[in-house]
Structure formats: structure tokens, C-alpha cells
């Protein structure tokens, strides 16, 4: 049986697509057959982050409308042959996604893949709803910032009321926190909410903290998920997250930040 993961946040631009690309690549690199689906119909971007934008022929809406088969629409990743990408449509709107259509696609993919990663669009409309509806696990991507934390809390409410598991009274979706764009220095100076502050409000299982990092932009410039940049802090942080999700215990990193000479001399941190 496949495990369906939704990467969601409510708020836009917090790092859902960056995260979806990284963890799907990470899972595949660990030997698990994985597919990542872009639910952002009308504003697809996952193809760019994965570097397969020029190979998109059919998309998820074509599959739902039976204009193409699932196998025709799936794109094999250039870096890892255990990873496939199902792109979103760029020309239709979000209402072209139907619950029945998405359900069928996920059912078919479940036969072949171990992990199905759903990159949710921002908001709480149809696209976001369907990305989370069939999920087993939810990765809540949050920035240490008031509106992002508030929206995450809202999403948690929807996960526990508007999902298939909730409606069928099954075991609830397992919810994990990914705190991203974290800047330890700004946390220390009291400008940014800390991990503890965020956890006091959301109290979720922490998968990991991703630091604010230049490597994310470099990765998206070249169309390679940042997790492949093993020297980068963000790449390593995503690597930890995948390992933890698969059951390894790894100490949390990137929460404290580096110690400068000044701080080494005078203590603190």
C-alpha cells in the first residue's frame, strides 16, 4: 500500500513546492518508488523546481478528463529513476480537479508507488482541499511568522474535519511540522518567532527545521531539488527530514545557528 503525503500550509509562498521537490527526491534516493503530484492547477511550478518543464506533455487534468493515460502524463525524473512527476495543468482552473478524478488517480498510483507526495496550492479552495483529502500524512510547512502560523492552525482544523479519514471516522491524518526559512540569528535577537514559540501554539511532531538559505534559490535556478546539494545547509536539513520520516533518529540541527567569533568569546547562544 502506498502512503499519501500532503505538503500543505494554507499561506502562499512559504516553501511547499521547495519541500515537495526535496522530500520526494529524498524518498526516491533512499530506494522508494515515489511520485510527486502538482495540485497547483493554473500556477504550476513543480516542473520548474524539478527541472522537467520542457518534458511536460500531458497533465493531471488531461488524465482526469481521460484525454491521456496516467502513464503518458507521468514524467520520469532525470536524476533518479525511482521518481516520477505528475504535473498540473497551466491553462485550466482549479475547478477542473474533481474528487472522483483525483481519487481514481491516487488509487492507480498506489498500485505502483510506495510514496505519493501531493504539493498543495496555497489557500483553502478546491485544489488545496483535494490535495489533502486522501492523505495519510500531512507535512505542515510553516514560516516563523504570525500569518503563516495562523494559517497552519487553520489547515490543521481542516485536516481533522474535511479529509477522507475524518469523514470515514478512520485514524486521523498524521500531522508533522516542517519549520522553514528559519534564521537563528534573528530568533536570538528577538525579531523572529522561535521554534518553541511556534510549537507552543501548534504542538506538532517536528520533522525538522530548514534554515533560510541561499542554496534554495541556486537549486531552483538550475532545476535540481535542493536536497541534491548535499553540501548546503538546506539540503542537509531536508536529508534529515526524510531520514526521520523513514524512522531514523537524527538530532535536530540548524536551530541554534553558527557561533561567530564574537559570540565564542563572550558566550551566549
Amino acid at each position, binding site marked *: 500500500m502506498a502512503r499519501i503525503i500532503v505538503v500543505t500550509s494554507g499561506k502562499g509562498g512559504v516553501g511547499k513546492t521547495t519541500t515537495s521537490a526535496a522530500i520526494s527526491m529524498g524518498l526516491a534516493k533512499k530506494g522508494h518508488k515515489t511520485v510527486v503530484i502538482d495540485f497547483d492547477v493554473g500556477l504550476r511550478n513543480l516542473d520548474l523546481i524539478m527541472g522537467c518543464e520542457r518534458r511536460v506533455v500531458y497533465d493531471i487534468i488531461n488524465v482526469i478528463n481521460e484525454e491521456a493515460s496516467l502513464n503518458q502524463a507521468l514524467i520520469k525524473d532525470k536524476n533518479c529513476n525511482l521518481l516520477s512527476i505528475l504535473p498540473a495543468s497551466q491553462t485550466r482552473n482549479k475547478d477542473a480537479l474533481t474528487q472522483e478524478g483525483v481519487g481514481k488517480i491516487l488509487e492507480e498510483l498506489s498500485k505502483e508507488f510506495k510514496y505519493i507526495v501531493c504539493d498543495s496550492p496555497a489557500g483553502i479552495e478546491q485544489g488545496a482541499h483535494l490535495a489533502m483529502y486522501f492523505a495519510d500524512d500531512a507535512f505542515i510547512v510553516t514560516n516563523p*511568522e*504570525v500569518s503563516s*502560523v*495562523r494559517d497552519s*492552525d*487553520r489547515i490543521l*482544523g481542516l485536516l481533522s474535519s474535511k479529509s477522507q479519514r475524518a469523514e470515514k471516522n478512520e485514524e486521523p491524518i498524521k500531522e508533522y511540522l516542517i519549520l522553514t526559512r528559519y534564521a537563528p540569528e534573528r*530568533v*536570538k*535577537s*528577538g*525579531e*523572529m*518567532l*522561535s521554534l518553541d*514559540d511556534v510549537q*507552543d*501554539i501548534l504542538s506538532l511532531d517536528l520533522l525538522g527545521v530548514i534554515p533560510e538559505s541561499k542554496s534554495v534559490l541556486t537549486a531552483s535556478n538550475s532545476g535540481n531539488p535542493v536536497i541534491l546539494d548535499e553540501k548546503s545547509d538546506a539540503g542537509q536539513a531536508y536529508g534529515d527530514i526524510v531520514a526521520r520520516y523513514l524512522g531514523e533518529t537524527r538530532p535536530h540541527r540548524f536551530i541554534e545557528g553558527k557561533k561567530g567569533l*564574537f*559570540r565564542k568569546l*563572550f*558566550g*551566549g*547562544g
Partner: protein
Amino acid sequence: MSLLDYFRTSKTSSASLAKERLQILVAYERSSTNQPPYLPQLQQELLIVIQKYVNVNCDAMTIKLEQNDNQETLELNIVLPDFRRV
């Protein structure tokens, strides 16, 4: 507390203000999103009925729907005015 911290945390930080605001807001939103959509209307109509008999303020009434494992209770709280018999 290190020497560096001493210079750093002199005033209330903006992050702690953010946290405080969030805690209040999230607590409020959690309690109100779990409520059925008809609740405000119900409250409005109940108030009109009650006002026929007693002179109460609109903010004198709170209404709350609570769910326990096996039952739902509608809790209605009305503060009556401090009236004296003449």
C-alpha cells in the same frame, strides 16, 4: 545569561509580542471554527425572544456548543440586569 545577552534583550522583543497576539487569536479561532454555522443566527433570534420578557443587553448573552464523547450540549448564559422591585 551571558554578557552578550545582557546587551541584547533589553526591551520586549517583537517576537514575544507576535507570540502573544497569536496565542489569543488562535485560541479564539479554534473555538469558533468548531461551531456550527447557524449559531450566530440562533443567538440573535433567542435574544429577541428573551428581550420580550426581560430587558437584557445584546452582550449579556453567550452561547456555546460543546461536544463530549457521546453528547452535545448547548450552553446558554444570560446575565440578567440588576433589577429591584419597586
